[in-house]
């Protein structure tokens, strides 16, 4: 099939650095292949900007196959754009019409400050993980075999589903409260569902929620926007599980 090309208008957030004000700038880009990904389209725009001796647009990206969680972008009013269950790198330009104006903005949250243009600082997620999103194992050379404890298929699948969270932050970006509950609940669930995670379960959920609150994320109002926009389709069941885990820990933890 012959590839089609479209001409598009772009309104993109430009911000010199974390301290500058920033604004939406308008760009025109012609001959965009509908087979190209959204990031390839931005590469094409940057090439055009460089040729015009202008500063290219900074945006996060890495694997470009939907598993690293680096790409972000709030495209036309939705995290990772209008498609479902994809990251921005998996979004194709065939989803857009010829002559369409496309808005591209960074994730907006107090806990995700803009570093430059479309790049935001998501280290708040790292700090939440460091607060409890792990199991303590002996790594001195006598590490226990990960499969030593047999786990039922159903439980393993549920834990795996939670573990597919790539920490991209689309949940925070989509939530009207900039809440990180879906991310934190996925990270709590992937361990809470497994026997290896039970040992530190109570402290884990308490510490991770505490860190989440300290980072300045909002509160969950169960709108469900996060689960709809999540590229990995993390379910709201995880938030309910975290609520259960936290309730248990709150009343029972030492």
């Amino acid at each position: 099939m012959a590839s089609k090309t479209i001409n598009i208008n772009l309104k993109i957030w430009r911000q010199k650095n974390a301290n500058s004000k920033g604004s939406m700038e308008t760009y025109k880009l012609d001959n965009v292949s509908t087979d190209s990904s959204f990031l390839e389209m931005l590469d094409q725009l940057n090439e055009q900007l460089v040729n015009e001796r202008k500063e290219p647009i900074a945006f996060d990206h890495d694997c470009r196959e939907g598993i690293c969680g680096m790409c972000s972008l709030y495209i036309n009013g939705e995290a990772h754009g209008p498609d479902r269950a994809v990251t921005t790198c998996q979004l194709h330009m065939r989803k857009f019409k010829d002559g369409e104006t496309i808005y591209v903005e960074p994730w907006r949250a107090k806990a995700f400050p803009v570093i430059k243009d479309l790049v935001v600082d998501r280290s708040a997620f790292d700090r939440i993980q460091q607060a409890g999103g792990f199991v303590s194992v002996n790594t001195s050379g006598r590490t226990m075999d990960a499969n030593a404890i047999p786990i039922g298929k159903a439980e393993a699948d549920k834990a795996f589903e939670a573990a597919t969270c790539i920490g991209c932050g689309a949940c925070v970006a989509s939530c009207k409260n900039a809440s990180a509950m879906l991310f934190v609940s996925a990270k709590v669930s992937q361990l809470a569902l497994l026997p290896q995670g039970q040992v530190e379960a109570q402290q884990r959920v308490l510490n991770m929620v505490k860190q989440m609150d300290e980072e300045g994320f909002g509160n969950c109002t169960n709108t469900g926007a996060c689960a709809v926009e999540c590229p990995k389709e993390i379910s709201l069941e995880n938030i309910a599980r975290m609520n259960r885990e936290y309730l248990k820990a709150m009343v029972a933890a030492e």
Partner: protein
Amino acid sequence: MSKSGIFTSSLAKKYWMALTGLFLITFLVGHLLGNLQLITKTGEEGRRAFNEYAYFMGHNIFIKILAYLTYFSILAHACIGLYLAVQNKKARPKNYAYNKPGTNSSAASRYMAILGTILLIFIVTHMANFWWKQKITETVPLHYVENTTDMQIGQDPMTGAPVTRKITLQSALTTNGNYLEVAAKDVESGQSQELVKIKDTKLIDMNTNLHKAEGVRDLHTVVMNFFGHSEQGQPANEYALIAVILYVVSMFVLMFHLWHGFGSAFQSLGLNHRKYNGLIRFVGQAFAIVVPLAFAIIPVMIYLNR
């Protein structure tokens, strides 16, 4: 975790919102059943049933505990809710230039804080109109009934025929379910005589100063008049139509608030399971439609039957 974590953490606030919300949902059921008496029963019987019910609600110790729990729930739900709304606004200092939240969430879920604020204003005015008069200023009059009868006051000395006069007897409904005559009025001369001294709701014997009985307040007439139904010689509220419209609008707001709130409370408490999610959604949405609608019908019916 800090000791005060049960109040400060984001999840603990959600538990409080859910628990107080669910309690207020059960309160709505009781309140609705009480209110429905306003249209299901008519005449003196209906008026009496409603006023005796209102008296019971104000004096039963078990109901009193529930009432204080309700006041607490309303205050806690409103305060924590508003605090959360402010915190959530702060979590996103800069909004998107272009946002399409309609693609991923229901409008009811996104406007809970605004819907809740409207409901709080409704509750304040609602309580000012009825609860305040019944319980705080105690300006709701007693439940009176009037009977005009021909009373024999003597015999004609010539013919021996009985001499009668038209007398209006005013009786008050008492808490033990009787009507006690409190005043008599001669219809022709307009002279009236008090038979019982009345202090607040206390009915006191004229001669012995003994407390004879406790009167029941006539909240029924206050409600009926408020919604435009002239009763007991009291003029109907001239702004009744506005009152009815605002009441109905408030119930629509309640509908949207419950539409999201009912199921949301279960999710917040961690009750989310494929087995019963469907049931929670069905019951929640049915409740969100039926209960506010039933509430709204009452003032409309009162107004239409005025």
